[in-house]
């Protein structure tokens, strides 16, 4: 008991991780689209829990705020509005099963290899810490500052590229919606 | 006749029915039913099963009717009694009835222990014989109908010979309703004198039954009055055949006539625009109007002229009478009679004066009459209102003029409605359009007369407000409007039958009836009402003075 509590962070991480995988399973295997979204939501919340158990509060909370609070709502919105039963009957959905199964198999193999290397390989011996350059900076700072320093100092270029991609997606969505409307 | 002994056989289900019928004799306890001490000679209160004590002498005849009714009402038939003819009973006034019963060994009937009690119910011949014997006295107005409901064990005793039985005429002896009635009203439509359809089931009416009770007659299978059984045989058989679930059963004495069942399907109902089968629902009788109150200047003037002429003729006759009387009196040397005084029209003391129609003087009416050129059949003024009656052909033209003509400008159609005149010749409805001119502050009523089944042209194109009003007219009167965008019912449901504001449409609904509890002698309706209301724990017994 005592041991379980002392390692509570680690244990919670495992627990949340398993729950997240369970949620992802619901997302994939559920018959109802709304149930899938609920599974997705659950998965997202559990991922946030993972972050929190690693004491990355800012990331965890941001995960909650952005994914659970924003993006999944939009998914749900769309799924609710579209009358899926009709399209299910027509067989428009779930047509890609025959491609999906080999793809998932391949993905499992690849990621399994990666995970195996990460968890049991040589690098698993290293401590999971921030980059050397950041270590000193985070000592007296809160979580948010550490993340922001990482984003806006070290990784400014990828960050900006990402924002451009998002902008493109935004514009694309507007264009699609407009043409649908007219 | 009188009842000497009453007792309760085993098997009482404590149903209170006997106490309801005859509270003086029966007293229902929690376990059984007792014969009251007040009414017994030995003064004890018990079921009287073993001792069979006699009733008090003074009660023997006075309570007879109610005891018989109680015995008949008993659902398990455990109430038995000895019935004898007594000399001082009012029954002695019935010469035909008395011998019939006396002929049987007195006391009339005590079924031997273990005798079948249900079996005689099917023994139609025997009961028929008794019934026929009693039936001859049917018109002698026995004070209570109950004695004719002879106790059932009589069947086991020797039947008397029917003195006046007439086996030639077939008749229905019994009729009852099996389980499964769907309350369809078909039987009541065929034979309203026998059947009475309530909300939950169908009943045999008390008027035709020997025991005078109203029930399904399922358990008791009580007989019909012979004369009714004879008279109503055709209708009962028709009803039985017409019953969609075949729950009406009957027993016939003699050869049943061959009767075709009347069809009671939906096709019959939907055949006409509105079926007025008064026989099907006598409670929906409608008094149709005799007069045609269609105001018209022409008719009014004719009436006035006729009234003046009648008055003149009356006066002339009075004067002529006076002259002859005077001449006669002179001839006989008597005093001359008083000369007649012409009656002055009665002075109107009320603040009320009939607004008589007058010639059209209003420029609008004159202008429209000119414009329409022969399509106007009448134009007059009454009660300060302008009325223009046009031919149905010219209706749309009239409305267009009213709206469009620069000197008329009736912008708004405020109201449109119809009236049904079933007594009129040549037309059945008048449809009126109330127009107002908002700019000129004038009102005008346009009227058309429509025949039954004739369609009118819709005014929606000219006055969009006519939309709902025409739908309402269609709904209420059945007048259709051609060119209307949506000629459907508006207030009544789509599948409603009939058009309610027609004069022949009855004011009572199907199956609606007035329940008069004063006629509810057996208390059936009262009991049903109580059942419906639920047991409210109220003692409904009428309080006694003692």
């Amino acid at each position, binding site marked *: 008991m005592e041991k379980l509590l002392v390692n509570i962070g680690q244990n919670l991480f495992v627990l949340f991780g398993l729950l997240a995988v369970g949620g992802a399973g619901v997302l994939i295997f559920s018959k109802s689209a*709304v149930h899938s979204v609920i599974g997705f*939501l659950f998965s997202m919340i559990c991922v946030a829990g993972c972050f929190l158990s690693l004491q990355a509060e800012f990331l965890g909370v941001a995960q*909650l*705020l952005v994914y*659970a*609070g*924003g993006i999944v709502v939009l998914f*749900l919105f769309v799924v609710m509005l579209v009358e899926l039963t009709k399209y299910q009957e027509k067989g428009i959905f779930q047509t890609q099963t025959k491609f999906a199964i080999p793809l998932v198999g391949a993905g499992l193999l690849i990621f399994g290899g990666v995970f195996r290397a990460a968890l049991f390989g040589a690098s698993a011996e290293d401590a999971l810490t921030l980059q050397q350059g950041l270590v000193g900076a985070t000592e007296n700072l*809160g979580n948010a500052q550490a993340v922001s320093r990482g984003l806006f100092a070290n990784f400014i270029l990828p960050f900006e590229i990402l924002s451009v991609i998002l902008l493109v997606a935004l514009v694309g969505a507007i264009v699609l919606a407009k043409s649908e409307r007219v | 006749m009188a009842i000497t002994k009453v007792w309760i056989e085993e098997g009482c289900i404590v149903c209170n029915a006997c106490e309801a019928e005859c509270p003086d004799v029966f007293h229902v306890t929690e376990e059984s039913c007792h014969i009251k001490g007040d009414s017994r000679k030995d003064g004890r209160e018990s079921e009287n099963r073993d001792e069979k004590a006699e009733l008090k002498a003074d009660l023997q005849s006075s309570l007879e009717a109610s005891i018989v009714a109680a015995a008949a009402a008993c659902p398990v038939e455990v109430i038995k009694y000895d019935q004898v003819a007594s000399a001082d009973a009012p029954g002695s006034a019935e010469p035909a009835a008395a011998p019939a019963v006396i002929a049987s060994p007195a006391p009339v009937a005590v079924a031997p222990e273990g005798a079948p009690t249900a079996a005689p119910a099917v023994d139609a011949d025997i009961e028929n014989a008794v019934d026929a014997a009693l039936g001859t006295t049917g018109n002698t107005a026995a004070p209570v109908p109950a004695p004719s409901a002879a106790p059932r064990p009589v069947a086991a005793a020797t039947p008397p010979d029917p003195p006046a039985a007439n086996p030639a005429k077939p008749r229905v002896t019994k009729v009852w309703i099996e389980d499964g009635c769907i309350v369809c009203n078909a039987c009541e439509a065929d034979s309203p004198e026998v059947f009475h359809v309530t909300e939950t089931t169908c009943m045999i009416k008390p008027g035709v039954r020997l025991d005078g009770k109203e029930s399904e007659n399922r358990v008791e299978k009580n007989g019909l009055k012979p004369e009714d059984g004879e008279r109503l045989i055709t209708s009962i058989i028709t009803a039985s055949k017409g019953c969609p679930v075949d729950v009406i059963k009957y027993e016939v004495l003699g050869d049943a006539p061959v009767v075709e069942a009347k069809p009671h399907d939906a096709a019959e109902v939907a055949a006409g625009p509105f079926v007025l089968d008064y026989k099907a629902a006598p409670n929906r009788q409608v008094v149709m109007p005799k007069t045609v109150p269609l105001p018209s200047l022409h008719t009014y003037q004719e009436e006035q002229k006729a009234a003046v002429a009648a008055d003149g003729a009356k006066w002339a006759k009075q004067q002529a009478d006076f002259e002859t009387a005077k001449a006669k009196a002179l001839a006989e040397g008597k005093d001359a009679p008083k000369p007649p005084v012409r009656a002055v029209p009665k002075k109107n003391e009320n603040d009320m004066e009939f607004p008589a129609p007058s010639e059209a003087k209003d420029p609008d009416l004159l202008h429209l009459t000119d414009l329409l050129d022969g399509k106007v059949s009448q134009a007059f003024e009454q009660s300060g209102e302008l009325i223009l009656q046009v031919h149905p052909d010219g209706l749309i033209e009239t409305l267009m003029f009213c709206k469009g003509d620069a000197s008329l400008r009736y912008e708004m159609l405020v109201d449109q409605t119809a009236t049904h005149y079933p007594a009129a010749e040549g037309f059945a409805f008048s449809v009126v359009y109330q127009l107002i001119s908002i700019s000129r502050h004038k009102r005008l009523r346009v009227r058309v007369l429509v025949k039954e089944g004739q369609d009118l042209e819709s005014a929606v194109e000219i006055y969009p407000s006519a939309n709902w009003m025409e739908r309402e007219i269609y709904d209420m009167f059945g007048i259709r409007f051609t060119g209307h965008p949506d000629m459907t019912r508006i207030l009544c449901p789509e599948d409603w039958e009939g058009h309610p504001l027609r004069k022949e449409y009855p004011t009572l609904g199907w199956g609606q009836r007035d329940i008069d509890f004063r006629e509810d002698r057996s208390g059936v309706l009262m009991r049903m009402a109580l059942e419906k209301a639920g047991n409210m724990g109220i003692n409904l017994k009428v309080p006694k003075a003692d």
Partner: protein
Amino acid sequence: MTPTLIQYLVISLLQIVAVLGFVMTLVPLLTFAERKVIGYVQVRLGATRVAGGLWGAQRGRTHQSRTITGGLNGFMWWLGKWPVISILRGLPMFIADALKLLTKEDIVPTDADKAVFVLSPALAMVAAFTVFAAISFSPGALFYFPAKFPFLGGLPFNGFLTDINVGLLFILGVASVGVYGIVLGAWASNSKYPLLGGLRSAAQIVSYEVPLTLSLLVPVVLTGSLNFNEMSTRMAADVPVNGLVGIGRSLLMFVGFFVYTTCGFAETNRTPFDLAEAENELVAGFHTEYSGMKFSFFFLSEYASMITVSALASAFFLGGHYLLPFGLQPAWNHFFQHSPYAILAWTCTPSILWFLLKIFFLLFVFLWVRATLPRYRYDQLMNVGWKFLIPYTLVMFVIAALLRYAA
């Protein structure tokens, strides 16, 4: 002295019980207050009694005082004779309300998605109550357990559950999950009015979350902290009043407060933004098909989020545990910190009292507004959100950044 892990867990449990108990008591009281406040505005009495008996009347016993509520009624009627406390007449209404909701028949529509239908009120409730994990009712320890207290002697009992350094974000994140309760509940009812209500609500909450967050960022930028306790402390003590900057900061906070409160009304679906449950249009909006306990979960979560919004507003704009709002406390402190009068000196220190008073006042404002204002139309609501509030908050955000730079 630092607690051991077990002691820490026990104290946390006690704190959770205390906070939940506080909120769970406050919500029913709030419903009673709603009856009374709106009743007062509308020239009527509001609740004065609880009708009928719980079970006495059915058994034919007519005497009121023998029933539970009847007895309470008698007591409350007696209370009504006294001038001030007579306002408490009808207080048992909140017990009766809770009992009624607990004992009502729980109806699940035939064609509803049963699992989701059951899940969504729970989701709304959990989200609304988890938020209180990050709300700090009092800075530091509320009290210390006495030394003789078994097991916990000498340990502090805090006025907050956790002291996350991203407390604000946590609250926003968890609160944003609450919308699922509404949307999923609406969808699972398989009925048209709830669906419309759910869609309205989802769109409304998602779009008002943006100005809400942006307006909360104004004090965050001004103080430089996302932590609940640190925020009010810095606001009161650390940031000195600096002439023009100080005035500008106060003004900005003042405007920000109103913007935030407006968004808060929309977030909690209260009048004039209660479109999700606009009973005149959508019968009862997203919870049309809900009854009994499930309905009361929605009900509770709405009132709990009212408390959350009030707590946030008082912590971030109204000075939190300190007396004065809008960052005016430093000036007050400057004059009275060393005042010889103890009471004045005391007003310069943080206290749970001020915080609660501010919350209560804001809750009163919620009720007041409900009694006064009509409801917006849906498109107007969206216009207000996107065309006015978001630009305003963005401008405020920029000004706040400039002020921060200047200071």
